[in-house]
Structures are given as structure tokens and as C-alpha cells.
């Protein structure tokens, strides 16, 4: 199946700005699914609110465009009621970790077989450039005109601590890694998180004087490095890319099957 067979042409043109990193994520995601050979009708994509969340509408799966921050809660209901379906939940950084932070950590904790993709552009784009929990200390935003004093989450560390059994990170500068990690995340039995650092030249780039899309991609190339690289040893400030967690633990829907067995057995 060709990549375009996954797209809903009726839905285009998309609403992302020129230079936005989210299209690269869409591309990598579709290629991952194509390579895995999963039937379109076996995939449910659930998203929340924000620029990133519009990704669901563009794709020819069962798509559920929900409310801000709650995508994982909706997805949990879909998965529990039909465990054979593949659940993919793309979220923005504000969607996943500000308003949706509680649902995020609890989905990690349950280890339910859902793939969460955090498209982290460190800003609220759709509302016009306010700081998010991922903007970081010192960032500029329309609601941080005198420099941001909020400290950032580390998506990888947060996911690990909350109990996700697959955690990876890459950037929109590294599209092959996007496909590779999303593939592994979908194949993983349990809750998987893929953080993809993405660029928002319209707001984050402009507000923080990083430049346009090209400069922001250069920035992601320069500021990241593979896990345990020599570069990291020399410069601890570099952000690591790669697979941080990949472990097998009982998956939630399978555990619930045991609950049913116990209830029916009267034990």
C-alpha cells in the first residue's frame, strides 16, 4: 500500500503552518504503519486538541478527535472494549502533559497497550504561542513576555517513572528514527511513549529568536545525540535520542482477562 492510501484527501489541505514539524511526524507514522502492514480498519487513532491533534483527521483509520488532554482516557475505553485494535494516540506537549498530565501518568502506570506519541514543540501553537510545560525555564512566549519561570518536564524521565514499558525519543530532524521508534512502539505489548521533538517556527522559533524551520531543525540536530554517545560525555547538556526503556510487564487488557476468569470461577 502506498503512503497516500493512508491519507484522507478530502481532509486536505492540512492546517499546519509552512515549516511545521508535525508533517514530518505524520510522514514517519504512516511509513511505520505501512512497513508493519497493519490493516487500516485495525487502527484507532485518538487525539485531543491542538495543532498536533489534527493529525488524526488526515488519516484513513477509525479516528476519534476528542477534547483537550483526554485522548488517553478515550483511548483506554476503546482499547479495553476491543483489545484487538491498535491504539495510537498523538498528542501535543500541552495536551499530553499539562491538561492531560494526569491521564498520561495513569495510562503509563496501567501499562495498557496503547502507543502515545508526544509531538513536543514546546509551545501552544493553536492558541498563538503561550508557554507549555515543555517550554522550559527562560523561554519566551506570549504569556511569558518577561521570560518563563516554569521548569520543564523531561518526557522520557516522567514516562519511565510513571511505568511506561517502552520509551523512546527522537526529533523531526531524524525522520528515519521516527519511523523506526514508532514501529517498535506499536509492536511493543504495553504502554509505549515516543517523544518527537518538533519545530514550531511560527511561534517558538520566532518568539525565541531561533529562526525559521531550517534553523530550528539545525538546532535539534546540534542539541541532540544518541544515547551514551561520546558527545554526551563531553557535553552533558545534550538531549539524548534513542530507546530508553523496553521491558515486558503484564499488559492491562490481558490482566483484566484474568479478572474475568477469577470472577467466573468464583475464586
Amino acid at each position: 500500500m502506498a503512503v497516500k492510501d493512508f491519507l484522507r484527501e478530502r481532509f486536505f489541505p492540512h492546517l499546519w503552518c509552512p515549516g511545521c514539524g508535525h508533517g514530518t511526524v505524520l510522514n514517519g507514522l504512516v511509513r511505520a504503519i505501512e512497513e508493519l502492514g497493519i490493516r487500516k480498519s485495525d487502527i484507532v487513532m485518538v487525539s485531543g486538541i491542538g495543532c498536533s491533534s489534527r493529525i488524526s483527521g488526515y488519516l484513513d483509520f477509525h479516528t476519534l478527535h476528542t477534547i483537550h488532554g483526554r485522548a488517553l482516557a478515550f483511548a483506554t475505553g476503546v482499547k479495553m472494549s476491543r483489545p484487538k485494535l491498535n491504539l495510537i494516540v498523538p498528542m501535543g506537549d500541552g495536551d499530553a502533559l499539562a491538561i492531560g498530565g494526569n491521564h498520561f501518568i495513569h495510562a503509563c502506570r496501567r501499562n495498557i497497550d496503547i502507543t502515545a506519541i508526544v509531538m513536543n514543540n514546546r509551545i501552544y501553537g493553536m492558541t498563538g504561542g503561550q508557554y507549555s510545560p515543555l517550554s522550559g525555564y527562560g523561554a519566551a512566549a506570549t504569556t511569558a513576555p518577561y521570560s518563563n519561570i516554569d521548569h520543564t518536564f523531561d518526557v522520557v524521565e516522567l514516562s519511565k517513572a510513571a511505568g511506561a514499558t517502552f520509551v523512546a525519543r527522537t526529533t523531526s530532524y531524524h525522520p528515519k528514527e521516527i519511523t523506526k521508534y514508532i514501529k517498535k512502539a506499536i509492536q511493543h505489548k504495553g504502554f509505549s511513549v515516543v517523544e518527537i521533538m518538533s519545530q514550531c517556527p511560527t511561534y517558538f522559533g520566532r518568539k525565541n529568536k531561533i529562526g525559521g524551520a531550517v534553523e530550528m531543525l539545525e538546532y535539534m540536530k546540534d542539541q541532540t545525540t544518541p544515547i551514551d554517545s561520546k558527545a554526551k560525555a563531553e557535553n552533558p547538556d545534550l538531549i539524548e535520542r534513542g530507546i530508553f526503556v523496553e521491558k515486558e510487564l503484564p499488559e492491562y487488557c490481558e490482566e483484566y482477562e484474568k479478572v474475568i476468569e477469577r470472577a467466573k470461577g468464583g475464586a
Partner: protein
Amino acid sequence: MTENIKFVQGNEACVEGALYAGLDFFAGYPITPSTEVAEQMSVQLPKIGGSFLQMEDEIASLCAIIGASLTGHKVMTATSGPGFSLMQEALGYAVMAEIPCVIVNVQRGGPSTGNPTHVAQGDVNQARWGTHGDHAIVALTASNHQDVFAVTVEAFNIAETYRTPVILLFDEVIGHMRERLVIPEPGEIPLVERLRTSVKEGVDYHPYLPREDGRLPMSDFGSVHRYNVTGLYHDMWGFPSDNPKIVHGLSRHLMDKIENNAHQIAMVKEYYLEDAEQILISYGASARSALHVVVSRRNRGEQLGLLELQTLWPFPAEIVRDRCRNARSVTVVEMNKGQILEQVKHAVEAPERVFLANRVDGVLINPTDIRNFLRVIQGRGI
């Protein structure tokens, strides 16, 4: 055949009704005074292969059942005041995306944490207008456990018929009181099952195109039709749209499908109304005390009657207007500051003859309270 008789709490009667209706997916979060609903679901559902989920909050609970409804399941959540407040955004989503689901609110005293273990009926208007934007809503209630069972079954039937969330607005007294419940035989109460599309694979399916009778056949997530569901205004494919014609059409459809069928959804119980000069209008636990007053006064020859509302929303205004036409006085008995009173005043021809008998202190309004109000209304002093 022997009758299946149980001695249960109202919350359990609600669970029994839901299971009878075919519920097989429940998600909830513990909150007084509704917790027994979740507890019973956690016991019963795994036995029939159904799903019970305790989510991280009430928001997630309603979101999870909406997701499960889309895969073709009959779903429910249960909560009380503060949890119902948290659910309002997702409730609006279920209205907009037309997702069949049932939301139980066992009312306690509010606002805020309020009076958790005591009775109130203060969420009537919240059920109507809690979520933002113009919309229609269905809310049902009951005053005894047999009726709790029956309206719960009806809630599922209405949810499926109109593709809508339905609110069950019980109260602490009904939820926690124990009384007799006879479980009907299978088939005794008709059930409405999910209306699924007959459109074949490969043929364009329109998830949001109503049939001539107004109903919208669904397609389960996971089956052959892949479509978009959104809380945005959307076209017949479920694609977001801000086209004024589409926005207006959908807004009207969401109102009309409920309001135009208000007479079908209206459920009331009538006691001694034929010749009643004084009419009490009540619902839920308050209606038990109201009925007690009516029966005892009838025994003394007074022409009192009771109109018990089981459908609160859409408000059964036509029935209220008709039954109250010849009454000298109409007294609304409720445990709030007059939320149904206002509806009754709007509905009747003589609003100046409509009075309120209420209690808002967390104590069940009792027959003596009602009799005292009636003395004042009748000009017989306190």
C-alpha cells in the same frame, strides 16, 4: 416460575437495571453517595465478561465510556455532584458527537464538596445546562427501587434511540435506602439495541446523516467503515466544518431530535389527579413524602393529587399544563431552591397559583414539612 426478588439499595437497583438493559462496560471513580454503583459493577461485570474500569478521575471515566460506546457497547458511569461537575465537558462531547451513554448522578448537597452523605436535589439545572453551548439533554429520575430499575432500562433505550447521553438524576435517599426489587424476566421490558448501518464495505457511509425517521445508524469502531468523530461542528462524514449552513443544521438537529420527541420521552406517574383541587408535583425521594401526604389527605376526603415526574428533561411541560389546568393550587415539592418550580410556573396557565415546598438542609423533606407548607398556602396559618 418464582419471582426474582431482591432486597437492595437504590444504587444496586440501578446496577441491576443497567445489566438488564445490556450494559457491558462501566468506568467510574469513587464518590459518595454513588460509590455502590461502581462497587457492584466491579463484582457483576467480570462475571458476564464485561469490563469494569476504575479511572483516575470522573473526567476520564466519562471519556472512557464514550470510547467504549464507539466500539458498540452499552456503557455507563456513575458519580455525584463534584464528579458530575468534572464530567460536563465530556458530556457536551457526547452530545455533539452523538454517543449513546448513560451518566448516573446520585445527588448530594452542593455546591462544592457540600454535604456528601446527605440528600439534595440541587443538580437539576446543572443536568440541563451544565455543559456549555445550546443543546438538548435527557434526564430521568425515580422515587422507588422498582422505578429506578425501570428508568435505568429506559435510559439505555433512549440513549440508543436518539444517539444521546442520558442522565439518571437520583438522590442520596434513593441511592442508599434499601427496599424490595423484583427483577423482571428477560423480555418483560423491551430493549432498544444499537442501530447499526446496513451500508456495505466500500460504499460511502455517512455516520452523521440522519435517516428520514431522524435516527442515525452507527458503525462500530473496528468494523469496515472508518470515519471521523469530533467535538467540532461537523458534516455528514464527521469532518470538521465551520460552514454556517452546516453549523446551523447540526445545531438544530441536536436540539430537534430530543425536543421534537419530548412527548415520547416524557414519563410521569399520576395519583388522584382526576378531581384534584390541589396538586403536588414532585420527583425522586421528595415524591415519596408527597405521596404519603396525598394518600393520608385523600383518606380524610380532601381532593389532593400528585403528579410525579420521572422525566425532568426535556421538561414535560404539556403534561404539567394539562393536569394542572383546573387546580386551585399547585405545590412543587423538591429539595432545592425551586429548580423545577420555575419550569412548572412557565408551563401552567396560572403561575400565581404555583408554590414551593422545599428543604435544603440535607434532610429528607417529610410529610409533616409538606403539610406545614400546605397550611400556609391554604391560608390556615403556620
